[in-house]
């Protein structure tokens, strides 16, 4: 999985004569193209995976729909099913029949961009969800935040701010407390939770993978005794169901992220409804 990093880790553990767990810094892998470092921090693995996701989604869906056959091939059928899932379950069901059409591309892109980047964490050698780093998650949440805020101001003008921060049917004195709270919750905390939820789940999954891998390696190769070796094997076996749990979390987080995007946009479209 993470051969060089793991062996170096194991070596250091052996030198210190004890188990040294992987640290958060370990999630920042060495730069793939060190010569790009002078632009900033260099072109890392996560950047490569983000670009890879763009190319993969573009290629897979374009290839699947190229023929536009009325009687679809298996690939086209699967792609249409995936597209239809985002279109109908996330788009139409949340935004309603009247408004969902123009938002399909955005929801489609959000869902599959997050999904593909998450699934990279389950693929050997990549073994790293792009969104386990805060940067990409902030970027996505930021773009979506700009989208729904701009949409709200476009639809309702300056009144949108009042609609989003002043709850109706509340006694006047309470508004002094509630208005700042609503402002915080809608405009500040919302994008933070949107991004951090994704990032934290992906990072946690990745840390578990690292911990399992390095722990099992340490127990099997470094620690003395049959018990420790057995424990290491048990951890490896236990990581198999964990892998599938991670897989579920990856799909679920992509779904939640896209669903929240749809809900935020719906909130802007119908800001005057509540």
């Amino acid at each position, binding site marked *: 999985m993470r051969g060089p990093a793991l062996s170096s880790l194991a070596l250091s553990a052996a030198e210190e004569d004890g188990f040294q767990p992987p640290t958060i810094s370990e999630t920042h892998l060495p730069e793939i193209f060190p010569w790009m470092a002078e632009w900033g921090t260099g*072109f890392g693995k996560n950047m490569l995976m983000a670009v890879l996701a763009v190319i993969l989604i573009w290629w897979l869906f374009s290839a699947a729909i190229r023929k536009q056959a009325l009687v679809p091939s298996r690939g086209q059928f699967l792609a*249409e099913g995936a597209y239809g899932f985002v279109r109908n379950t996330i788009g139409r069901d949340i935004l309603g029949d009247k408004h969902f059409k123009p938002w399909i591309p955005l929801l489609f892109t959000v869902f599959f961009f997050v999904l593909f980047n998450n699934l990279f964490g389950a693929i050997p050698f990549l073994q790293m969800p792009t969104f386990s*780093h805060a940067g*990409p998650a902030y970027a996505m949440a930021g773009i979506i935040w700009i989208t729904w805020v701009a949409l709200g101001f476009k639809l309702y003008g300056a009144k949108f701010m009042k609609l989003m921060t002043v709850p109706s049917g509340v006694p006047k004195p309470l508004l002094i407390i509630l208005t700042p709270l609503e402002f915080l919750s809608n405009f500040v905390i919302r994008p933070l939770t949107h991004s951090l939820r994704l990032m934290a789940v992906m990072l946690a999954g990745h840390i578990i993978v690292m911990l399992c891998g390095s722990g099992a390696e340490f127990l099997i190769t470094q620690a003395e005794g049959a018990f420790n070796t057995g424990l290491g094997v048990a951890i490896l076996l236990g990581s198999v169901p964990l892998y599938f749990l991670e897989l579920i979390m990856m799909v679920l987080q992509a779904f939640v992220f896209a669903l929240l995007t749809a809900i935020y946009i719906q909130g802007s479209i119908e800001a005057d409804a509540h």
Partner: protein
Amino acid sequence: MGEHMISTALVQAAEGDANPLFPNPWEAAVAGIGFLVLLFIVIKWIAPKFEQTYQNRIEAIEGGINQAEEAKAEAAALKAEYEKQLADSRTAAAALREEARAEAAQIVTEAQEKAAAEGARIREQAHAQIEADRAAAAASLRTDVGALATELASKIVGEALDDDARSQRVIDRFLADLDAEQQTQGAAQ
């Protein structure tokens, strides 16, 4: 042994320079730009194709149903037309047969009438001929009688005009002859 050390190490890691909440701006930029590029691609090429395929399929299915219904209606109309034509041709054939029969009957009656007329005409003609023949015969007889009478008269005159009794006998004989002649003539007729 491990638990304590793992927890301290994790705390150390969290306190270290790699704060997971602190973003790498370049990663954020690459992910954000990548997302926007993908969004552009999806808006421009992918989503329209899916929607169009979807629409085409709906149209094809609805069109297929409509077409089938049209074809069905057309077939029904065609069938009705054929049946009507068949019935028409049947009535036409029956009418023709009837006409032919009537014509044949008419021809037969006409022929019969014609034959009867012809027969009547021939009979009429024969009658007329006979009548004419008889008239001619009577006429010629009358002239003959005249001539004979004249001849007889001359004979009588020539023989003796004085003998009344004798001339009377001659006349009687003549008339008797004439009667006998006429009777034989009538019997012959």
